[in-house]
């Protein structure tokens, strides 16, 4: 190994460790949810508990917001995977009903990453 090799190895180990540390920060609680369906595209706050009905490709999906969390309660799809996925509360999480084409994307006030550079 030459001196350049050792230096490279050191820099690579440090860079990967720092990157891993920054990427794997604990996730941030979401405060908003982006709801996307073929007919609607809106952002709803998670602060207020409520039940929403969103029109999808097959029919109405029932979505419940409670205690800063969100989940599908009912859906016209046959598999009900969206309902089985349960609650989502962290920024960046997704709940999707593919057959009904309704998706929920949780947003935090802060992005889970401060910056991403190479």
């Amino acid at each position, binding site marked *: 190994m*030459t*001196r350049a090799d050792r230096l*490279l190895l050191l820099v690579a180990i440090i860079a990967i460790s720092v990157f891993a540390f920054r*990427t794997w920060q604990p996730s941030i609680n979401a405060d908003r949810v982006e709801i996307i369906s073929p007919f609607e595209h809106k952002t709803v706050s998670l602060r207020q508990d409520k039940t929403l009905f969103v029109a999808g490709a097959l029919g109405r999906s029932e979505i419940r917001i409670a205690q800063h969390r969100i989940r599908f309660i009912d859906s016209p799809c046959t598999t009900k995977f969206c309902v089985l996925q349960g609650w989502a509360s962290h920024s960046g999480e997704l709940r999707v009903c593919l057959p009904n084409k309704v998706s929920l994307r949780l947003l935090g006030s802060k992005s889970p990453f401060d910056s991403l550079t190479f």
Partner: protein
Amino acid sequence: MALVLQPGREDIRLAWLAALATSIHILESSLPTPLPGIKPGFANIITIIVLLRFGWRSAVWVSLLRVTAGSLLLGTFLSPTFMLSLTGALCSLSILGLACQLPGKGFSAIGLSILAALAHICGQFLLAYVWFIPHQGLWGLLPVLLSLALILGIMNGVICNKVIARLP
């Protein structure tokens, strides 16, 4: 009028080396992997050895011929797999080209192999992120991929050194 291409000594040598790299590439593709995108990259050993013995231009030929011929034989030519493979190869070749410009003793096979492995995975990751899965969650996987690339890069570098020591 028949067009006759007369291969020179250089061309024949490149063809042999590319054939060797392609064989390794194909053998390697039959190994099971724990995660998609993780591969030992043994074919890169040939690229590094060619780079050290015959220069960067030969390494580019061998590497690109390997990616093209390998994908043709595996049936992935112009598929997403091929695109990932090609992007990785182009990224690592660019980095290797720069690394060779270093004055003094510069990098040995180990350093070059680490650089190639890291550049390879970074290029592939960016392509995958931009083209296939533009989801933030993907970034969580990158440190794992980079760590593995570093370990496999060191391993390949050590193999390179052993092979070079035995070459006439």
